[in-house]
């Protein structure tokens, strides 16, 4: 059965800390891995990764994929309270479906 596992399930950090969120996957026909940030409503798109070893960056966020070891990490440097959210990892297989992990709840304290 296809699955996506995120860790940790939750964490609390202080402003300015750096955090690393993990996502491992086992899917039959991997096509790409996506990261989303979900605050109180709709998940919003952060990154899509299709190739191993190529880091994607957006401001203080970055992400990288390892297709050999079947995992991805999402890094957030110099965290701010506005980074508090649920971070979702999803894998897209051939076809149109996304398989989601359970999410990591991040809380950044001031």
């Amino acid at each position, binding site marked *: 059965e296809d699955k996506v596992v995120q860790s940790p399930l939750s964490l609390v950090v202080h402003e300015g800390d750096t955090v690393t969120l993990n996502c491992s996957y086992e899917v039959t026909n991997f096509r790409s891995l996506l990261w989303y940030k979900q605050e109180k409503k709709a*998940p919003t798109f952060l990154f*899509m990764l299709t190739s191993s070893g190529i880091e994607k960056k957006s401001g203080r966020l970055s992400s990288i994929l390892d297709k050999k070891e079947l995992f991805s990490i999402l890094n957030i440097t110099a965290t701010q309270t506005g980074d508090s959210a649920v971070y979702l990892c999803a894998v897209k297989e051939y076809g149109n479906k996304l398989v989601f992990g*359970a999410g990591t709840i991040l809380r950044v304290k001031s």
Partner: protein
Amino acid sequence: DVKVTQSSRYLVKRTGEKVFLECVQDMDHENMFWYRQDPGLGLRLIYFSYDVKMKEKGDIPEGYSVSREKKERFSLILESASTNQTSMYLCASSFVGWDRDRNNYGYTFGSGTRLTVV
């Protein structure tokens, strides 16, 4: 800005009621999806549709049905609501292929409907 709109933000229904959750997108997307989101379980796919009048079961279709009579609208139906269907329901839509402008598949989510069945 492109949008996926869910008709209700919060809904409270009684056990046994028939419940309709509506979702409308204005992006001319071919694909539409219904997920439910529960703590510790993430988003789980209920049903999806890749064309008008076409539907496919997701991972947890039991107790649900869907309707897609028009390309922009995808409805989720709970035939007889039960308390274990209390959840956050998220609708999403996407292109079939790659969206170069967005550098992704254009997956866009609605704001969600928090359904409570009492």
